[in-house]
Structures are given as structure tokens and as C-alpha cells.
């Protein structure tokens, strides 16, 4: 396992300036994620989970404090650099799958690859990743709307993995699936973690959180456990 942590939060504060007064969403949050970890982040609504997720996903920058992704400090990065960091180092998995309906499955999966290479890519890598998430080959040329929820989430996982990211960031990955399909997805995530993929998962479902090896609990913008 690589010595360098894939993610470090140091005294991170996030304040949203609003007309009615500043709102502090995160207050002095510090933690570290080592390579190969499977972490779940839990907390009630309004606890700061979404803000934390946005910061971990480099969609936002902290008001104060430092965030490091694979040793790179994100606080001073430009939008272009942050976007490249998201593309190359982070894989996103959303609750509602968020595939592109205008693209077929292979195109959806290879989309981040095309962003990286700036040219048409060999679909074989996409097929390989789709096979690794156990999606039937006959579905590769279908459009997302022709797939079930569980199948769509497998495609979304494949898309998140295509650029070999350092971290897989999951926002309620089973929140839109029935329990059996959800369990299948979690089994897949566990398997990916066993192969070395670092996973950070935001969830409010304690059963789903049980799949992770560490849980960070957050309340009122602070880590409580």
C-alpha cells in the first residue's frame, strides 16, 4: 500500500456567505483517507455531509484549512486544474446514476477517457471495465434508459473507474435501488475495494454503512466519531 494518503483534510472550514448572515457548514474538519480504505460518512440532514462531499470531490474549495488529494493541495487551484483533478483522480457515483441518455453504454463509460485523451478512444477498455462490473455484454450498445436501475448503477461505477482514479466517491449509491439490487451493488463495491480501490461513501443507511471498514460520523459541521 502507498504510504501517501489519498486524501487529507486539515482544519477545514466552509462558510457560505448569505444575505441573512454567514452559514458555517463545516467547522474545523480534519481527517485522512489512506489508499485502499473503504469509508462511509454518515450524519443527519443538515450536518454538512453534502458540503463535505463537494469538498472531497473538488467541486468546491474550503474557506479556510487545507485539503490534499494524493498530496496535491487544492485550495489554490484554478477551475481548470480542479476539473482535471476530478477527471483524473476522482470517480463519482451518484444516487440517480446520472448517465447521459444521448450516449450509449460504451460511450457513457468511455466519456471521461475521451475528456482525458481529447480524442476518440478504443472502446475495448470500456468493455473491459463493464465486464469487471458484471454487466452483460449484449447491453453495451444500448442506451441508459433501456437498462434497469441496478444495471445503470453498474455502468455508472464503470464510468467512475475508467480513468483509474485514486478515490471512488459515492453519494448514496444504493439510494435509488431496491434492497436486493442495492446489496448487489455493495457487493461489487466491496470487491473493488478488495482489489485496492479507495472508496468514500456518503450514506444515511446504517446497513449500507456496514459494508465499509471505517465510518466517519458528522453532526453540525463537525466530525463526532
Amino acid at each position: 500500500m502507498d504510504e501517501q494518503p489519498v486524501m487529507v483534510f486539515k482544519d477545514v472550514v466552509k462558510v457560505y456567505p448569505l444575505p441573512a448572515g454567514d452559514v458555517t457548514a463545516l467547522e474545523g474538519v480534519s481527517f485522512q483517507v489512506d489508499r485502499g480504505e473503504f469509508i462511509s460518512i454518515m450524519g443527519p440532514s443538515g450536518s454538512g455531509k453534502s458540503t463535505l462531499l463537494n469538498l472531497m470531490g473538488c467541486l468546491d474549495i474550503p474557506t479556510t484549512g487545507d485539503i490534499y488529494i494524493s498530496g496535491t493541495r487544492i485550495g489554490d487551484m484554478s477551475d481548470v486544474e480542479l476539473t482535471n483533478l476530478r477527471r483524473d483522480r476522482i470517480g463519482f457515483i451518484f444516487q440517480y446514476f446520472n448517465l447521459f441518455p444521448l450516449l450509449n453504454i460504451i460511450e457513457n463509460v468511455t466519456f471521461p477517457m475521451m475528456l482525458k485523451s481529447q480524442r476518440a478512444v478504443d472502446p475495448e477498455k470500456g468493455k473491459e471495465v463493464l465486464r469487471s462490473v458484471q454487466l452483460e455484454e449484449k447491453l453495451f450498445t444500448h442506451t441508459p434508459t433501456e437498462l434497469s436501475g441496478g444495471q445503470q448503477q453498474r455502468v455508472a461505477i464503470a464510468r467512475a473507474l475508467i480513468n483509474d482514479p485514486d478515490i471512488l466517491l459515492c453519494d448514496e449509491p444504493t439510494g435509488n435501488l431496491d434492497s436486493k439490487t442495492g446489496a448487489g451493488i455493495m457487493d461489487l463495491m466491496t470487491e473493488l475495494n478488495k482489489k485496492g480501490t479507495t472508496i468514500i461513501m456518503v450514506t444515511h443507511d446504517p446497513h449500507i454503512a456496514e459494508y465499509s471498514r471505517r465510518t466517519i460520523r458528522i453532526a453540525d459541521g463537525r466530525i463526532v466519531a
Partner: protein
Amino acid sequence: MIFWEIAKRNIRINVLRSSLAMLGIVIGVVAIASMGILGNSLVASVSDSLSSVGDSVIVTPYSGGGGGFGGGGGSRSVNLKITDQNFQQIKRVAAPNVAIPVYQTAEHMKIGVGSDDIVAVVYGLPSADVPDLLKLQDGVYNNGNSGCLIGPTFAKDHNLKVGSRITIGTNGDKGTLRVMGIIEERGMSFDISTDSALVVTKEWFENTYNRDADYDEVVVKVKDGDTAAMKIAIEKQLNKRKDMKIVNVMDSKATLATIYSTFGMVTTFVTAIGGISMVVAGVSIFNVMMMSVTERIKKIGIMRSIGTQKKEVMSMFIYEAAIIGVVGSTIGGVMSIMAGYAISALVLNTTKHLFTIANAFSVAEGMGFGIVICLACGFYPAWRAANLNPIDALRHE
């Protein structure tokens, strides 16, 4: 690239909306290009009629103004004919160019026995100078006092041929003339309009109408083309006194330039009116693009979150606008040629001026304007899409 593909597919999936936006561009391009074609064809048509007189300076007796309407300040009309003395002065100034004295009157005449009395213009010109001024389509130049030349419209209207006879005067009292030649069509002219007229010898005209070197006008054919200098030289010689002008001098080339300039302005004006429809089309494109952005806010958020740069999001929408612009403008360009053909045929009764460089430019101008309008109207929606906050966009439902 994938964004080009997404832009194409988005247009295909919203085919009705995209087609309506394209239709606006098609109408705009057709309006601009066909108005341009009409204007160019009009100029070309007039140019055909007038270009043969572009090397002339026409001198007429001073009539109180600069050859146009109204008077010229305190000046007075002192002579409605050009005297032989004046003509000799003009001739000296014009040398080595040819100065042609012209007599002109309207006369009654009959064609054949028992025919109706008609009235036509009769010009009297020195026989030696006629070839410098007129070209024949049939027959020979007239050197004798019993012959005449006639214009092509006159010949056609009265079914005259070389050798036909025309009886001059109300009761035929001015004798009979034989048609020696038929003049080539000259169209509108500043010097003499011969299409529906007779041209006789100077001597016949002087004898018949009792005229003696008091000309109605003098035409100077300027070989080197510098008609402006010739105009100034003649005016300087003959209109020496500011309070008593002798002649009006018209530079046909300058007059032509004024006419072309006026036609140019008219063309620009009607094209600008066509441009209004393009602006309306642009508003439609803007609306379509804004709808397209609003519909895809969430998708934009996803794209941005997984590593799509702002410029790539922007390119996707610019591609959409460009596709609408290029396809709409191309269809519009083809249709504007057809519209230009139809308008030219209906308004000018000819389509021979359709395939010209000026008209090709008008079509290109219309198409270019269509594409530019599409890109310009697609720019803000694209910019707005690219600059959406990814977090807000992801939350959008």
C-alpha cells in the same frame, strides 16, 4: 469529438424545435440574399442600358440650373440654343476628341399610304460623325439627304426595314426619306435616345427646319475616359462669367456613378429590411439555445463533476448553434438563388444577370450573416451553461 456528437444527437432528438429555429435562419438568408440579388440584377440591367454613354460629355444650352431641376442662384437663361461660335469653342477644347453637334425636334410622319399620323423624335447629325455615336444593326450609314437611320424600337413598332419609306410632315410637306440603316439598341441615354427616333443628316435637318448652326446640344466623345476633366475644361471656357452661364455640361460618367450609387443605397436598404427577419431568427435561436441549456442543467452539472472543462461544455452548445446556422444558411442559400431567379424574372423580365459574382457575394453574405447570427445568439447560452456552478447544477431538478 464527443461534444460534436452530443450536439448532433441533441438536434436530432429535438428535431421539430431545431427545424423551426433553422426555418427562421432560412427565411432570414433568403430575405437578405434575394433582396441583394434583385438589387444587383437591377444595377446590372440598368448598367447594360447606360454603359454605352459612359464616355460622353453632353453640353446643352444653359437653362437656369446645373442640368437638373430649379435655377442656379442669380443666373439667367440667355440662350436656349448652342451657337456655332459656342460649338467652335467646345470643339477646340475637346480636340482631339470628337464634338458632335446635334439638332433635335419632334415631327409628324406617316409610314406607307393611308397609314395613321405618328409623331417621333428626329435628330440631325453630321454624317461624318454618326459612326462615332451610333452603331448599326442593319443597313448602311446615311450620307445623302434622301435617307435616314431609324431606331430598332421604331422599326419594330412600325414594321420597317432597310429600304422602307417614311413620309415626313403633317401632310407629307417635308418630303420622303428612305430607311438606309437600323441603329443598334442603345437603351436609356444621356446624349440622344435613338431607339424610337429617326436620325437624318445635318444638312437635311437645316434645310427642312430652317436652322442655321444653332444646335440643341453637343456631344463630346472622350476617348481617354477622363470625362470629369473635359467637363471642367468646357465649363471653364464657356461659363467664364459667373453671372451669365452659356451652357450646362453633364459628365455622363459622374451621372452614371451617381445612379449606381443610388441603386447601391437602395440595394443596401432593401437588404437591411431583409436583415430584420434575420434578427428575428436570431432571437428564436437564442430562445432555443436557452431552452436547451435549461433542460440540461443537471447534465451539465454531471459533466462538470466528472471532469468536463468549461470550454468543452461551451463548445457543445456552440456546435449546436453552428449546426443550426450552417444547415439553415445552406438551405437558405439554395432557396435564395431560386427566389432571386423568380424575383428577377417577375420584376426585371430577365434572369440573364442572375449568375454573377455580385449575386454570388450576396448569397455568401446572406449565408455568412445567418451563421454569424446563429453563433452570436448561441454564445451567451453556451457561456451561461459553461459557467454554471457544478454544485448548483447537480442539485437542479
